[in-house]
């Protein structure tokens, strides 16, 4: 088993690894490393170890999928490993219909403060510390308490005769006519003041 694995991850005589140039695996490495970095895995040893674990799985899969790039395979493997691990830790089977497990898992990592307290547990096979698993499983984000739906209904204001006046505004050119009337009134006032 050990020797078979080593054979798979060592470059061949032409410098290719699992049927692909080393440069391609370098790109795949960067892709996986970037994502784990985004998950705030800051310990470099741990980060390197996790990336290699993903690449090992990708390299085992690669010979069977010669048309796909190493980056694509590695990214898929990364997603699969992470989702499987979430499924185990959260004791929740993954569903094909949506990716709710992935979201829930990431949220749980944040709420359990994985980046701050539990980096070494990330992607590690169980058993995990009780505190860690309970923090992960109980993680739930609420935007508000339970809804207590009710409906507010505005009560109309009775403005009396003013309502009729406000409706005048609906007539076309009413505003323009009003401005002209005001202007004419102003002229009359000016006339009265000056005579």
């Amino acid at each position, binding site marked *: 088993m050990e020797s078979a694995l080593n054979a798979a991850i060592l470059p061949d005589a032409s410098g290719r690894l699992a049927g692909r140039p080393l440069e391609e695996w370098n790109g795949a490495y960067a892709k996986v490393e970037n994502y784990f970095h*985004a998950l705030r895995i800051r310990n470099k040893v741990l980060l390197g170890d996790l990336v290699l674990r993903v690449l090992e799985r990708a390299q085992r899969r690669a010979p069977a999928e010669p048309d796909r790039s190493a980056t694509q395979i590695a*990214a898929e493997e990364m*997603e699969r490993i992470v989702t499987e691990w979430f499924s185990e830790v959260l004791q929740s089977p993954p569903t094909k219909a949506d990716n709710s497990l992935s979201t829930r898992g990431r949220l749980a990592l944040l709420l359990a403060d994985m980046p701050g307290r539990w980096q070494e547990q990330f992607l590690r096979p169980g058993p995990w510390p009780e505190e860690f698993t309970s923090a992960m499983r109980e993680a739930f984000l609420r935007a508000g308490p339970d809804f207590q739906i*009710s409906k507010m209904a*505005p009560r109309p204001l009775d403005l009396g005769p003013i309502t009729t006046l406000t409706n005048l505004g609906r007539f076309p050119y009413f505003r323009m006519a009003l401005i002209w009337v005001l202007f004419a009134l102003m002229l009359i006032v000016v006339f009265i003041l000056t005579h």
Partner: protein
Amino acid sequence: MPEKPPQVQVTSVPRVQRGWRLFVFYSSALLLTGVVSLLFADLLWRTGWSASRTVLLVLFVILFLLAAVGCMHGVYGFFLRTFGDRCRITNLKNYLGQNIDGISTAVVFPIYNEDSVRVYEGLRATYESLVKTGHLDRFDFFILSDSTDPDKWIEEERRWFDLIRELDALGKIYYRRRLDNESRKSGNIRDFLSAWGRRYRYFMVCDADSIMRGETLVSLVKLMEVHPTTGLIQTVPAIVNAESLFGRTQQFANRLYAPVFIAGLNYWALDLGNYWGHNAIIRTEPFMQFCDLPQLPGQKPFGGQILSHDFVEAALMSRENWEVWFAYDLEGSYEETPQAMIENAQRERRWCQGNLQHSLVLFAKGLRGVSRLHLILGIFGYLAGPLWLAFLLTFNFIYAYQKHTGLSDITVQAFTPYLSALSGTAHALLIFLICMVVIMLPKFLALIDLANDWPRRREFGGLARATTSVVAETVFSTLHAPLLMLWHTRFVVTNILGISVGWATQKRSAEGTTWLFALQRHWGHTLIGLVWGALMWQFEPALFWWFTPVLAGMVLSIPLSVLTSRRRLGARARSAGLFLTPEEIKLPDELLSLRSNMKIHELTDDATPSRAHAGLAEVVLDPYVNAIHVSLLREKQLNPVYAEQFTKFGAGSDRVQKLGEKLLAEGPEKLSASERMLVMSDQRVLVWLHQQAWQRPGETLTPWWRAAILEYSRRD
């Protein structure tokens, strides 16, 4: 032995007392106006009556009445503070020992594209202060976002999460953003009440810049509990945290004059007080039942949605016989003020629009007379500007007309016999002096009030410094008043004509308003001042000198605007002992907490400007921000109202999936703003985008995505 709760003197307010107080208060203002108007009419009579003088007299009567009402607030407030005011809500019943176990109160912060750092730090300060009271379990906090900027939306969510984690407040501080910000702030509150209102007996509305002391929150709940017929209690927020010279003058004026004015206001308003939209506690049930605002008939600017909702909500509450009080002696309620004249004018413009709309609400049947008075005072707060301008122009016209026609300006005998001894000039001077006294008296009384209160005197840096500050503030407000007059005139006219006046966002340097921006905003004021001044000088140099305070404000508007916005000058005035306020002399704990946390942000937050569509990049690429955002969207869909809105908005449709594809393949620039918002509102597509952005080979993504991924992979 348990500590005995402090006792307060208990007094009841007989209903008849308010009617008497109203009569006395407004009679005083009317009497004063009547006497001085008679003097003015006599002066006009002496110089020869004309139609234009009738116009001048009418304008004078209106303006003087407004000044007299203001003056009476100061006078009555001063006497009440000196001799004691029993009719305060805090004095009517012993509330301090009231048990509030099991009483639930929501503290809500409606926000709209605000600086989330400041909003959340204000909330943190309030929350931490409440923790110290031991009553935290009776309160829940809600950030009610109406933000339309996607970057702000994501930042609000991220910072909310940081806040609840730091305060261990998961399940105590909630965040909710509306999909559709219909009816603005009042709609935001209604949306909150429709979803959760029935869970809370009371809710407390805070503005984005509000800070409340925990003890004050608890006191407000206790007050509501002991006054079961009270629907709303409005605190009088103290202006704090001002740093610029302008901000500090406003802050000083608020802290020194407001207690006297509000005591005067409370004298006649009593249980028919007003609501200013924030820093107030509201009884949920009657508010939900009676205060949902209808659309006004007709078209804008008067018809449609009620913009300044607060006054109307208080009026509706009062209409249904729920009491509305000012708790003006409760400390620990704070807000901030604009730091520059232009920012202040921008705020005035919004308020002007809302207050003018109240002229329609005035006619609503069933409103209490006192509520109508509040509305009228609000409206005239803005109409006073154009009326004053009309008064000055009419006066100038009369003068110019007299000069032009060569009519005699020799005065005749006054019709009031004992005034005939005065020359025309002395008569005019007497009226001018009376006007000045009426305007300045409240300030003087506020100083006397301060002099009578030794501990408070120290809180303003001593009487000498406070007096110097009052003089300096008066000089500044004299120069500022003509600018407000021109601004208000413009706002009123454009609002009535239904013209939307676009205002560019304030261009501020680290120090304040830039010279260029001030020039853009004030060139008209300067020009009016110069032309007006030149014309007056030409007509009559003696008259010109009388008008210098008005003209100086206009001509000097640009330097005045720039210099008063300077923090440096604000700090210098502070070290000179000018405009000191109690919160500057001794910073309360909640403000200290706010200030130190803001300083930490200033020192630690990344100051580099974020890339375009940073919020979109963050919500797609950051695994945690994506998870928070998607979880909030999922939870929101549990509410059938929101679920319906999501469907109406188009979230969950195939179109959004296609937009998601386009976003990845072509970048965010190729999507319209509404399309980007739609993508960000679809939880299914966002999860897919997160997966795809990290899985797809770089060469299949646009340079924008590649750069964003690179940025995330280098982020510490």
